[in-house]
């Protein structure tokens, strides 16, 4: 006899109404099940409907969103038809949730103690009702109890001797406080008694995420929905949070739905994975199986586009061409058909059902259903033939930069940083938030002045250039920004934006500029007709191409790229990285490539510099540094980088958790 699933989602449809009155079909016929204690990853790119699905489960769709079809059964009870009161009794008690951005998910004017108290208080009133519920559920009593570690002797989760059914009245504020301390202790906040009265802004990002986990677990839910819980965090912190989540849910027997765009996180944390695309489920199966033997072309394409730490320097990946489907349009066939290299005629006209291909794997792909074998493994990254770097163009020596804070505090962003860059070479700079890498980019691009040190361009000292010299320096050194939305003036057309440097540096006659703009747009893979439109009508990846076209306009020798792909989806990342490598080869550019993702940096760079606390802690050849790191911080960074390889198939890496702590 198989136990019925804890959560069963059948044919879930979610629609939004757009401001102009149209419909947006964000989630289309999504079905999956979750068993008690299971960890399920829901993976997909932005707009795939993964977060919307999670919010729909709890009846918390924002704005105009509504469930237009299907059912969500929790232990047999349909939550779609349940009333708001019933849903509130489910939230936190049966299904807990944590969200992406720990910086905004906590109320800035309430203390941490108040946060936990609010949650505990909300559950206190309903626990008897919920408890009665749970007692009546025979399945849990029989199937669950013997295996439920909560009742076992293992006291990794200290409980204050209270059963969930025990009455908790408003009187025992002190008891709730004690429980709050216990919860903070559980998630690894040091000195919980003292910190209970602190406000959110007094905690680091990682600590805030820990507090949010404590809040989500306060009601001892059966299911934890985690929506991109580590996306806003640095890799080393991400690693710790995933470890914490894993330990807590394992010891409490909580089932986890982990929503992420990061294949590495999937491989690291989940037994089963659900791949979503364009609001539909395209593939579903055990992580080890799906990640190594994908059935759906999208899964395969996504895996091929993910940058792996093991991929050596100077190789290139194939991105998935095109952009995700417009969810406002009705779907005739497979959502992925328009971007699929293996698409057949019927893929465009017939909706592929999600069918079981093996005992454990289901995929929604008509050709795949007829294929017995999984798709062939991705082509290994192809090595590029790139010319050897030429003469040194840019040198920085002993750069310092200090920001004066309010009051007496000041913050040293750059501390004695030195580097050099040759023509045709890519220098990767990797570091976590606050390491000073973005400041370095701005100092090198002369957007901010350095406090001390020297910057040499073609052997000339350009540290503090005069007005005319600054102009000539800028012509040689250009920059690509992280945020493709913020870095383009919304009031200008793309043509005006790209022509702006041409105008500033008086490149060519005014009447030749439109032709030059068209040429630049073609160079970055855009249609020259784009010149007449405003940035808002382009996707993130296309905007980043516009930014690159603008940077290339004055024909610079050095291009400084500050996190050029970190705001983009995985499949688009590969496109942009490929474009930058091609441009470097064709134009002989010297590139400074800044990122927090070591895998990307290794792949594009000749050499890598690792930054930490405003200093360069290690520098070396890209492959050399990744394979034989010397500095403990580099080792910690390498160990924390999640690789999209299932745990079983991964070579063991020595962890040095003491190197960095939250």
């Amino acid at each position: 006899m198989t136990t019925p699933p804890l959560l069963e989602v059948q044919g879930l449809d979610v629609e939004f109404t757009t401001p102009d009155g149209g419909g947006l079909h964000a989630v289309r016929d999504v079905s999956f099940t979750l068993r008690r204690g299971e960890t399920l990853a829901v993976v997909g790119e932005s707009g795939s409907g993964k977060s919307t699905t999670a919010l729909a489960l709890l009846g918390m769709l924002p704005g105009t969103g509504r469930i237009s079809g299907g059912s969500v059964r929790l232990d047999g009870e349909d939550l779609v038809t349940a009333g708001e009161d019933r849903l509130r009794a489910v939230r936190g008690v049966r299904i807990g949730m944590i969200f992406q951005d720990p910086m905004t998910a906590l109320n800035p004017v309430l203390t941490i103690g108040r946060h936990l108290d609010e949650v505990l208080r909300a559950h206190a009133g309903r626990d008897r009702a919920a408890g009665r519920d749970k007692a009546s559920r025979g399945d849990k009593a029989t199937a669950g109890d013997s295996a439920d570690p909560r009742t076992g002797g293992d006291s990794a989760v200290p409980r204050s001797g209270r059963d969930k059914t025990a009455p908790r009245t408003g009187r025992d504020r002190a008891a709730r406080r004690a429980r709050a301390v216990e919860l903070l202790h559980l998630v690894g906040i040091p000195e919980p008694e003292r910190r209970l009265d602190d406000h959110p802004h007094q905690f680091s990002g990682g600590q805030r995420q820990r507090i949010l986990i404590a809040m989500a677990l306060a009601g001892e839910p059966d299911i934890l929905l985690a929506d991109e819980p580590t996306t806003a965090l640095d890799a080393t912190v991400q690693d710790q949070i995933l470890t914490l989540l894993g330990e807590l849910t394992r010891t409490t027997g909580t089932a986890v739905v982990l929503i992420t765009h990061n294949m590495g996180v999937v491989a690291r944390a989940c037994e089963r994975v659900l791949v979503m695309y364009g609001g539909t489920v395209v593939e579903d199966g055990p992580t080890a199986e799906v990640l190594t033997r994908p059935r759906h072309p999208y899964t395969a394409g996504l895996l091929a586009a993910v940058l792996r730490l093991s991929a050596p320097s100077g190789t290139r990946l194939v991105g998935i061409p095109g952009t995700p489907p417009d969810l406002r349009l009705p779907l005739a066939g497979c959502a992925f058909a328009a971007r699929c290299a293996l698409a057949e005629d019927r893929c465009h006209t017939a909706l592929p059902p999600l069918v079981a291909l093996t005992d454990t794997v289901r995929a929604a792909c008509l050709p795949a259903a007829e294929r017995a074998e999984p798709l062939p493994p991705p082509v290994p990254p192809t090595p590029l033939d790139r010319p050897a770097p030429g003469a040194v163009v840019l040198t920085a020596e002993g750069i310092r930069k200090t920001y004066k804070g309010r009051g007496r505090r000041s913050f040293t962003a750059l501390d004695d940083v030195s580097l050099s860059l040759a023509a045709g070479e890519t220098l990767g700079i990797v570091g976590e938030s606050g390491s000073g890498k973005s400041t370095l980019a701005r100092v090198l691009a002369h957007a901010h002045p350095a406090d001390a040190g020297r910057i040499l361009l073609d052997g000339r000292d350009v540290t503090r250039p005069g007005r005319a010299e600054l102009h000539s320096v800028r012509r040689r050194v250009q920059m690509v920004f992280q945020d493709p939305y913020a870095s383009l003036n919304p009031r200008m057309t793309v043509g005006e934006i790209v022509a702006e440097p041409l105008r500033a540096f008086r490149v060519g006659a005014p009447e030749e500029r439109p032709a030059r703009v068209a040429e630049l747009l073609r160079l970055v893979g855009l249609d020259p007709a784009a010149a007449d439109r405003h940035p808002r009508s382009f996707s993130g990846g296309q905007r980043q191409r516009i930014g690159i076209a603008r940077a290339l306009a004055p024909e610079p020798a050095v291009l400084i790229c500050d996190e050029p792909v970190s705001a983009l989806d995985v499949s688009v990342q590969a496109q942009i990285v490929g474009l930058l490598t091609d441009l470097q080869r064709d134009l002989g550019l010297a590139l400074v490539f800044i990122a927090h993702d070591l895998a990307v940096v290794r792949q594009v760079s000749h050499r890598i510099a690792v930054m930490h606390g405003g200093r360069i802690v290690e520098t070396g050849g890209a492959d050399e540094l990744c394979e034989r790191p010397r500095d403990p911080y580099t080792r910690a960074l390498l160990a924390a980088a999640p690789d999209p390889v299932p745990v079983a198939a991964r070579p063991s890496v020595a962890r040095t958790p003491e190197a960095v702590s939250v």
Partner: protein
Amino acid sequence: MTAQTAAHPPLARKPRHPYRAALATVRGRTGLTLVGLVVLAGLLAPLLAGHGPTDQSGLALAPPGTPGHPLGTDDLGRDLLARLLHGIRADLGIIAVAVPLGAVLGCLFALAAAAHPIADTVVQRTFDLILAFPGLILALAVTAVLGPGRLPVILVIALAEIPVFGRLLRTGILVQSGREYVTAARVGGTSGRRILTRHILPNAADPLVVQIAVSLTVAVFIEGAMSFLGVGVRPPEPTLGAVLSQSMPYLAQAPHFAAGPLVTVTALVLGLSLTAEALNREIRR
């Protein structure tokens, strides 16, 4: 090279300018219609009135519908329609000069503040000082020196609007100059002057447009209030506030005396507010 990434076709229709979209909403149209009617009445005053605004007839407090006096007459036997229409005209004349004057001066202050930190401090303190005299107290202070009249009214309105526009634009410039596209333009070699005029100002201008509509209602308010306080435009010249203020003692016996300016002022300020709201909603989207 990178052939796989052709740009996608844009979403078909070209979006309208947001201001036009805003004014095409029900709110925007109602607002514009109300304002339009009042402005038209003011412009055509000499044609529509039939009497001079200060001509006295023998009939005091004649009711509406009296032959030759469709809205009746006031306590001195002056035609109320003529006084209303010329009052509108006088009000429009004042606010059309005062608000733009205040707006321009405020913006100049803000631009000066953007030029240098010391100028910024001076400008900020100046604004603080003006704002320390709440609206009508400022009016009292100005008229204490200049005496009542049209010029003090204009001056008070303009003075009150200077810090409003100045702070708005100063904040806008500060916010925009912190945006990444400005850094991008600087790195792209664009000159400081062009960054200000082509990049920062167009993006900081939206709130100013809304504020002009709001400030026009404030101007109507200040004009009326000064008339009520007896420090406005000198009688017998009519303004909306002056006619209304004169009607106060006769509210019980001749409510029609107050009716014209009440309806007109309400229509004008409601129209302006609706327009401002419509613009604001569209801009915030």
